[in-house]
């Protein structure tokens, strides 16, 4: 096993071996999660705190369930209604929490880099559950697991990522992960929703959907981030759906066995056709949710192992035992 990271802040810091290690372990946790008794003791006795500075239902419950299945004591803190509103800074919040001796800290924050900042100030493992427009590493890993299980591999695939790339941390993390695993990536979306300098990332950029989907093995749709739109990126939702919404007709350009993915929550009729999203022959959206729990179990298990080893080394005066 090669996974040595202390925190999971982004895909950027992981090697392809790290990624494979996570996916292999996650495969085992998928099996565990399908049993009636879904319990392991990997995190027994450990405390996991979920700190969400941004509202989230799916990711937070996925992390909560993952921690509970591994036997951790899980606490959810909804920071939207907490002392942050009273003016406490992120660092002070982190130091306060740190004094409660958590072992795993799962953080989502609206500002890019906020989770990195927090990780510097605490002595536990920090998992990034999404920071601003920066990274959302567990989402990219669960997408990779979904692709690997559906396609049998996670190399040499043509993956089309469509929609609001500029505001999406999911796109950022997937782009880095799929690049590290040597896939061919196409980004599709209106130029107003493409981040600057994107042509230097080693991927193809298309503003025409049909052209971009040509021969794709995987079609990854992104949510149109309505709450992030400070206005004027697209003329209207209906024009967006007409040009960039995924329906059966546009999907016909992709490879016949292409799978359709979406990180959720979906805006049906804005970026994806409702019927297509429910088509069990094409859509793996429900699988993504299932893989999410397994991938988060794997990440927390690996980080907890490193945390124990790290603390063991400290206890023995820095000597490896």
């Amino acid at each position: 096993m090669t996974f040595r990271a202390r925190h999971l802040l982004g895909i950027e810091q992981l090697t392809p071996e790290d990624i494979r290690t996570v996916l292999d372990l996650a495969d085992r946790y998928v099996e565990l999660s399908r049993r009636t008794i879904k319990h392991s003791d990997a995190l027994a006795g450990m405390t996991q705190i979920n700190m969400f500075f941004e509202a989230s239902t799916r990711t937070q419950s996925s992390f909560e369930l993952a921690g509970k299945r591994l036997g951790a004591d899980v606490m959810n803190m909804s920071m939207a209604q907490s002392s942050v509103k009273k003016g406490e800074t992120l660092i002070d919040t982190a130091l306060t929490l740190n004094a409660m001796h958590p072992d795993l800290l799962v953080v989502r924050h609206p500002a890019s880099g906020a989770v990195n900042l927090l990780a510097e100030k605490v002595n536990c493992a920090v998992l990034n559950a999404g920071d601003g427009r920066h990274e959302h590493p567990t989402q990219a890993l669960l997408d990779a697991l979904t692709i690997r299980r559906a396609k049998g591999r996670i190399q040499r695939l043509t993956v089309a990522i469509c929609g609001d790339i500029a505001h999406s941390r999911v796109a950022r993390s997937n782009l880095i992960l799929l690049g590290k695993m040597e896939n061919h990536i196409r980004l599709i979306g209106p130029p107003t929703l493409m981040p600057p300098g994107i042509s230097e990332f080693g991927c193809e950029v298309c503003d025409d959907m049909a052209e971009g989907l040509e021969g794709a093995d995987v079609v990854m749709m992104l949510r149109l981030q309505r709450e992030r739109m400070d206005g004027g990126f697209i003329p209207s939702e209906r024009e967006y759906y007409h040009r960039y919404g995924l329906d059966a007709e546009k999907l016909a350009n992709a490879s016949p066995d292409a799978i359709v993915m979406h990180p959720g929550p979906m805006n049906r009729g804005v970026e994806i056709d409702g019927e297509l999203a429910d088509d069990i022959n094409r859509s793996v959206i429900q699988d993504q949710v299932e893989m999410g729990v397994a991938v988060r179990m794997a990440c927390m298990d690996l980080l907890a192992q490193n945390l124990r080893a790290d603390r063991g080394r400290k206890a023995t005066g820095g000597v490896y035992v």
Partner: protein
Amino acid sequence: MLHFTNVRLIDPEALTDAPGSLTVKAGLIMALGGEPPARARLIDCGGKCLAPGIIDWGVKVGEPGERHRESFRSAGLAAAAGGVTTLIARPDTSPAIDTPEVLEFVTRRAAEAAPVRIRHMAALTKGREGREMTEIGFLRDLGAVAFTDADHVVADTRVLARALVYARSLGALVVGHPQDPGLSRGTSATAGKFSSLRGLPAAPALAERIGLDRDLGMVELTGVRYHADQITTARALPALKRAKANGLDVTAGVSIHHLTLNEFDVGDYRTFFKLTPPLRCEDDRLAVVAAVADGLIDVICSMHTPADEESKRLPFEEAAAGAVALETLLPAAMRLYHAGALSLPQLWRAMALNPAARLGLPQGRLAAGAPADLVLFDPDAPFLLDRSKLHSKSKNTPFDGQRMEGRVLATFVAGKQVHGESL
């Protein structure tokens, strides 16, 4: 009377760097070369460099309003330690320096508290809000050397045109911040691969050229004397060059940070590298260094902007922008010297001669009759920068922990030593 011997004289007017001697009498430079007069105190400089004191144009001091970040006392001490003998303070205080009363207050405070000369710029519009011009006449009579809204861009061109025409009638100098306000609103990085990787809201580098083009149009319209505070991108340079060639009364500056750092220095969201405008790509940095060398960019300044720990220990987007630099301006400039990019006289042309000339100050020259504002420094002395040792109340320097070369040995204002071991 002082006589400096065995010294390398850095003369930014003649663009020479040569051994010589210099005599100071009654606060003025009396002679260059020649024998020491009788009764003069001899100072053997051991072959180190003597140059005009630095004129640092665009320093933020926290008075009034933010004295916990920087006072005239702490800024003055930092300036003296950095070889800065005249600092030109910015009006982006709280409240802004936009009335004769506030200007009188800061002028008095500065004179009482600081060991170096301090001159003040005043706001161009009331409250720096871009709606109504300030009392430019009164403020000028009270000694405001230039008018600027600092990093606030006057977006309404009608308001700006009136303020500029009025300023022109008084012969006042206006300092602009060339930046398109729409493109740069809410951003904290330069658009490109790096900002996209870090997920930071970013403005294109061209936002500076767009802002400069507009300002130059306004200069042509009104005939005002204009200085662009910071030109930091390659693509703004042709516009500046054209304006100068067309005879517009235009000059431009750049901060030392944009000459010595690039966007990659931000690394893992290091907020001490968050500046206004944001750091640029390496190609831009090289182009701007070349523009200083050939004189297209006239002035190098520190853009000293104190920010306390609390305002920097935040996620990058939310953190305050700006860096302290009064004390690190000279050692950072030595990086350009040691890299062979700029000679010492070229550096002092941009850090002393040009700003003094543009602001109508008698300093900035090594010439008989000029004020004896001088800095004695060793361009080669290496040291490790420890931010806790800075004289500024705020310690937000991007050079913390870095290896620097170039140490100020002594600073003189009007012939009186204000920093360094007694010589």
